[in-house]
């Protein structure tokens, strides 16, 4: 399908990585034009817009048009590049404006990823198919998830043919999980999905977990039906009792039961509008969630969500040591780690020892979680340079030159955007550019100026 000419501009902003819901003004345009060619997309977009504006208007079509094309202005040279950069930067920065208050996050997480393998996943409204896209994003999700939650574990369950199907056992090793979802031909979509069966299966695999760890289910759901053997509301009540948090990313449309599952268990629900939005919705589930207040109200004084865990810190065997069999794969290897309690040899950490069940980690794994505990303070947007006696000419992080004149973008001063493209650390009072601001808070977690 050749895109209509009107879509061009919108497309430029909405590239995969930066397409956000947050650029709402622009999102309207591509989705509206796209829907000309696709009957199905209409419901989905309306549904989603209706959701966002539910508080003000009951229906999306009662909302006034957002004249998105008016927010884009040409610069002196008649180019749009500056305006586009601004919009992208604004979308990225909005993500950073999350509350900075101290919240207790769950560090030890257990997640069951439920994949819809029903025939609805062969739909081609997301390229190449919903199924292929889901597998691709699921792989990226798993990698990123383990990067941010090194002490967590993921299990994988599939829904097809009216049954729940265990695809990957609960594991703390990203390679195991990735291997489970790597073989496409074993996951070929087929039949009806069953939410209840899948959730029950996920629930049973998490029933033995200690109370200090979180139990989560993330469902990628492409179907509009579910084929259940019993009452799914009973399952929901059981999940509530077990403190399981359910989050769903729907690919088709909103279903009442899906929203109920998420809202009652404290999870997140979202309907993906397009490929980029799908990824955003999924990746929003990666940072560790705040621990729920319910858990704290449980007992006065003692916190049931806190516990002391026993962990082993193994020595790494050098590559030159004599080879021996490992307990996890029964292969001859010279490198590996020795469990400090039973001296069994395992290939990789973090893991639970196959012999004595001790949790084996290495100190960098613990360190990887520290940034959730000691986050970088958000930088303040610099509105004008009048009260700064000697402003630096270049970004303190990457030494890129700041622009001299404030941006003339309509409304650029609002929403925490600096018209000068400068963001200042509240501790060391150094200025940073937009790129470094995002990079420091998302990736490095350490301010280059004050080193904290």
């Amino acid at each position, binding site marked *: 399908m050749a895109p209509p000419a009107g879509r061009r501009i919108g497309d430029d902003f909405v590239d995969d990585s930066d397409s956000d819901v947050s650029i709402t003004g622009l999102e309207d345009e591509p989705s509206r034009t796209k829907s000309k060619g696709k009957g199905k997309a209409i419901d989905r977009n309306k549904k989603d817009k209706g959701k966002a504006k539910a508080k003000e208007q009951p229906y999306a079509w009662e909302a006034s048009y957002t004249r998105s094309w008016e927010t884009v202005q040409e610069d002196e040279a008649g180019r749009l590049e500056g305006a586009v950069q601004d919009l992208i930067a604004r979308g990225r920065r909005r993500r950073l404006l999350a509350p900075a208050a101290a919240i207790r996050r769950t560090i030890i997480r257990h997640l069951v990823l439920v994949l819809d393998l029903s025939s609805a996943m062969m739909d081609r409204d997301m390229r190449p198919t919903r199924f292929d896209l889901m597998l691709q994003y699921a792989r990226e999700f798993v990698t990123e998830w383990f*990067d941010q939650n090194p002490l967590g574990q993921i299990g994988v369950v599939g829904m097809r043919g009216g049954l729940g199907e265990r695809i990957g056992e609960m594991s703390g090793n990203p390679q195991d999980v990735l291997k489970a979802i790597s073989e496409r031909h074993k996951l070929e979509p087929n039949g009806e999905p069953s939410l209840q069966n899948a959730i029950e299966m996920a629930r049973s695999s998490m029933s033995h977990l200690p109370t200090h760890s979180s139990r989560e289910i993330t469902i990628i759901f492409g179907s509009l039906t579910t084929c259940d053997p019993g009452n799914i509301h009973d399952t929901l009540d059981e999940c509530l009792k077990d403190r399981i948090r359910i989050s769903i990313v729907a690919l088709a449309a909103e279903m009442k039961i899906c929203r109920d599952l998420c809202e009652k268990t404290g999870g997140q629900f979202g309907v993906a509008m397009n490929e980029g939005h799908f990824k955003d919705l999924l990746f929003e589930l990666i940072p560790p969630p705040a621990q729920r207040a319910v858990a704290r109200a449980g007992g006065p004084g003692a916190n049931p969500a*806190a516990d002391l*865990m026993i962990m082993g810190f193994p020595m790494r065997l*050098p*590559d030159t040591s004599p080879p021996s069999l490992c307990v996890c794969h029964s292969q001859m290897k010279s490198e590996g780690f020795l469990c400090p309690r039973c001296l069994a040899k395992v290939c990789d950490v973090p893991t639970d020892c196959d012999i004595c069940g001790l949790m084996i980690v290495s100190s960098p794994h613990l360190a990887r979680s520290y*940034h959730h505990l000691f986050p970088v303070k958000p930088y303040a947007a610099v509105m004008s340079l009048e009260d700064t006696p000697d402003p630096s000419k270049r970004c303190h992080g990457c030494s890129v030159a700041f622009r001299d004149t404030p941006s003339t973008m309509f409304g650029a001063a609002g929403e925490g955007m600096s018209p000068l493209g400068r963001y200042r650390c509240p501790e060391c009072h150094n200025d940073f550019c937009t790129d470094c601001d995002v990079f420091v808070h998302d*990736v*490095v*977690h350490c301010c280059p100026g004050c*080193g904290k």
Partner: protein
Amino acid sequence: MDKPSHLSVILDLSPTQWALCAQSANPTGITLQTFLSQLLAFLNAHIACKDENTLAVFGAFPGQSGMLYSSTGEITSARTESTDANTYRPFRTLDSTLMTLIAERLESYDSTTEEAPIGLVGCLTKALCYINRAITTSSSSVTEIEGAVASVDPRILVLSVSPDQSSTYIPIMNSIFSAQKLKVTIDVCKIFGAENVFLQQAAHLTGGAYVQVERTDALLQYMMMSFLPPPAIRQLISVPTQDRVDFRAACFCHKRIVEIGFVCSVCLSIFCQPVPVCSTCRTKFPIKTLQRLRDARPLAAAAPPTKPLAPKNGTATPARPG
């Protein structure tokens, strides 16, 4: 393999450590002047290797850090030097800019006051910010398929003379993890002083080389042999790797190295014995767990206590601030 490579060099320019290094007799020390002249030869070799190679130099000074040179022209020397017909122009710009800025920075220090800790973390994070920008701008201008390999092959070389500072553990670990994410290799060359545990971990986790220089008069040879080839080529020429990296943790209560530790689920503090209250986040632990763990412990307690750790040796997990 034919990709251009980017090299960010981090110079540890602590005046005290360099003075100690120059006086040291065993192993034979090296003066800052000699070091800089060898370094310039190495840097020139890097930009001469390939026309598209880029270079950035960061200096870690006591309590400060800053960019000293960048081949994309962010930092320029104030002086306009006279052209020399016998020198390749980029070499000359590099040499004069670097030397002028280092001299300026070092002269401004007051030798009477006590030296602040070195700004290594600032340098590492700045180098990462710089590489991040280089990657994003180059990939957007090329406009290839998303996820395509970045057109630059970045790495960081740390030339260190200062010992570990335990307070920088978390920032350094954070930098290491972001380097892993950006696929940046961190190489470490320890010119003077004891082994640096944090930098060893940095090299190990990012797949770089950690080289402890034994003969400082051959420094240039060490650098040329180990750090000049980009990581892609290093697989073919065996570069010294660090085999023995200590990843064991030290407990927060007695600073003992533990093999089996007790970890608070809220803040991940490590203890060598079951404690009723976490000393870091003041969380109270349920009595049931304490009893269960005490019962399970005799096995571990029967083992002879590990010797307390000397502070200089550096610990894998020193106490955190706050």
